[in-house]
């Protein structure tokens, strides 16, 4: 994984020297040529082809943007409601993620989407305690997070 990125950057610099133009556009061109070369050489390099992960990362960003916009409108609808009828509460989210990096990414994404806020992380690093604005059904909420964010993060890191 890391060695592939280093190769790609090296190829980009080589391309800059070969074409004798030293600007950002030439660097990006070199990166693209490097990505194509690495695609043909992927059998001889360790790990999965890393552009796949870049693609999944972009996909994660789009999932996040969609959730952000939808849930902001849900919160705003609650703000302008004449009577406070929501049922807030703290629920437990068991997670399959292992490393600290994945866990902090998940909890930050959960905190960033309106309607859910990470209050605490369990001692075993396997559970997140999440405060939700409107919590009629705990199971539905857990499945929602598992199917969107957790799945997308697992695709990026594994």
């Amino acid at each position, binding site marked *: 994984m890391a060695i592939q990125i280093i190769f790609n950057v090296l190829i980009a610099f080589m391309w800059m020297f070969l074409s004798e133009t030293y600007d950002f556009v030439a660097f990006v061109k070199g990166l693209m040529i490097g990505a194509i070369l690495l695609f043909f050489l992927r059998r001889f390099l360790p790990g999965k082809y890393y552009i796949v992960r870049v693609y999944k990362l972009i996909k994660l960003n789009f999932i996040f943007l969609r959730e952000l916009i939808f849930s*902001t409108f849900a919160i*705003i609808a609650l703000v302008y409601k004449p009577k406070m009828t*929501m049922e*807030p*509460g703290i629920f*437990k989210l068991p997670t399959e993620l292992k490393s600290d990096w994945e866990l902090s990414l998940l*909890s930050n994404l959960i*905190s960033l989407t309106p*309607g859910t*806020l990470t209050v605490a992380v369990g001692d075993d690093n396997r559970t997140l305690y999440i405060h939700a604005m409107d919590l009629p059904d705990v199971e539905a909420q857990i499945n929602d997070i598992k199917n969107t964010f957790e799945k997308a993060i697992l695709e990026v890191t594994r």
Partner: protein
Amino acid sequence: MIEILISILLLLGTFFSISGSLGILRFPDVYTRLHAATKAATLGVACVLLGSFIYLFFDQGIISGKLLLGILFVLITAPISGHMISRAAYNSGVDLWERSEKDHLSKDLKKN
């Protein structure tokens, strides 16, 4: 045409910010208020910065990296402050709103 897009972005940004402030006033307890304070405001600031980025790009021809970095840093820091405030509130014993349905955390804390 592009002016309409910029105006929509700026107006949406201000609308989100105002709704966030109203939410801080209206919601019943610390945790629900944090939702309004840290989230709606995030999207509001992001919309305003994006609107000014598009304005600078099409009107002045400047690609302003600072504005994009501003959006990135707001997105990085907002969840951390929200998490830390709610954690500090919970650990110092601030109660949830009385109509709150579930509290799995208090049970797990008592076990230890």
